[in-house]
């Protein structure tokens, strides 16, 4: 049994990213799509922290990128939820199949 290192954490974050991708492809509700995107962003965050800790311990750049990604994810979630609520007002549904006016 090899000791837990960078490779293990990268495999964990890869698993989480593709779980999020599966959810993004199968779900048809805008809020659950947003949740899948959050899972994918979190897996990328784990990667930044792990690369910083194990490959470049003398710097802190991965930590800063981590903090900025969390901030931008918060802003993105807030804007997405505002758009979802607006869509619900005009269409009475937040299913992606019901919002197809700009499809073709």
């Amino acid at each position, binding site marked *: *049994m090899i*000791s*837990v*290192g*960078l*490779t*293990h*954490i990268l495999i*964990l974050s*890869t*698993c*989480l990213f*593709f*779980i*999020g*991708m*599966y*959810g993004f*492809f*199968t*779900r*048809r*509700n805008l*809020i*659950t799509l947003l*949740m*899948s995107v*959050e*899972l994918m962003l*979190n897996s990328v*965050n*784990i990667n930044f*922290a792990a690369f*910083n*800790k*194990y*490959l470049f*311990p*003398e*710097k*802190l*750049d991965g*930590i*800063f990128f981590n*903090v*900025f990604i*969390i*901030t*931008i*994810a*918060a*802003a993105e*979630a*807030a804007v997405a*939820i*505002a758009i*979802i*609520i607006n869509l*619900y*007002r005009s269409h009475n549904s937040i299913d992606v199949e019901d919002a197809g006016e700009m499809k073709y």
Partner: protein
Amino acid sequence: MDASTILFYTIAAYILVTGVLAVTTRKIFRSAIWLLFSLIGIAALYFWMDLPFIAAVQIVVYVGGIVVLIIFSIFLTQKSGDQMPKPILGRTLPSALASFFGFVFTINLIWHHGFIENKGILFDPTVDSIGMQLLNTGEGGYILPFEVVSMLLLAAMVGCIVIAMKVKKEETI
């Protein structure tokens, strides 16, 4: 196998199981709660990696902020007890295959890359050193992105209010 290894595998299994449940359960409110558990597991992983500051930010922003926002929007737009329709096989099968092959491809890349871990230097992610370097104006300082992000947050806040604001009837064109 020492305690740290056992702890890592426990946290990893917890994150993955709750993540899978969050994307597959058919009740939307349960999905949000499973996402909450998964995010707490990721915060635990940051604690395991000796990054208490990032773990605290994760708990405050994700668990305390984004998940609560998602639950609010579920209550505003859905009947949370209802089950969502089951996804059709013609959609789940291709997406499962795409995820699986992408997963295998990435794992293959990671496995054969052979990262050389840098063990000699001490990693110092204390709040003290993070704060000193984040707000530093000199070499390697991050003060400019910090200010840009604060402007972005302000713009996002104004944008959210404008998008979600109710327009009065006589003002609509």
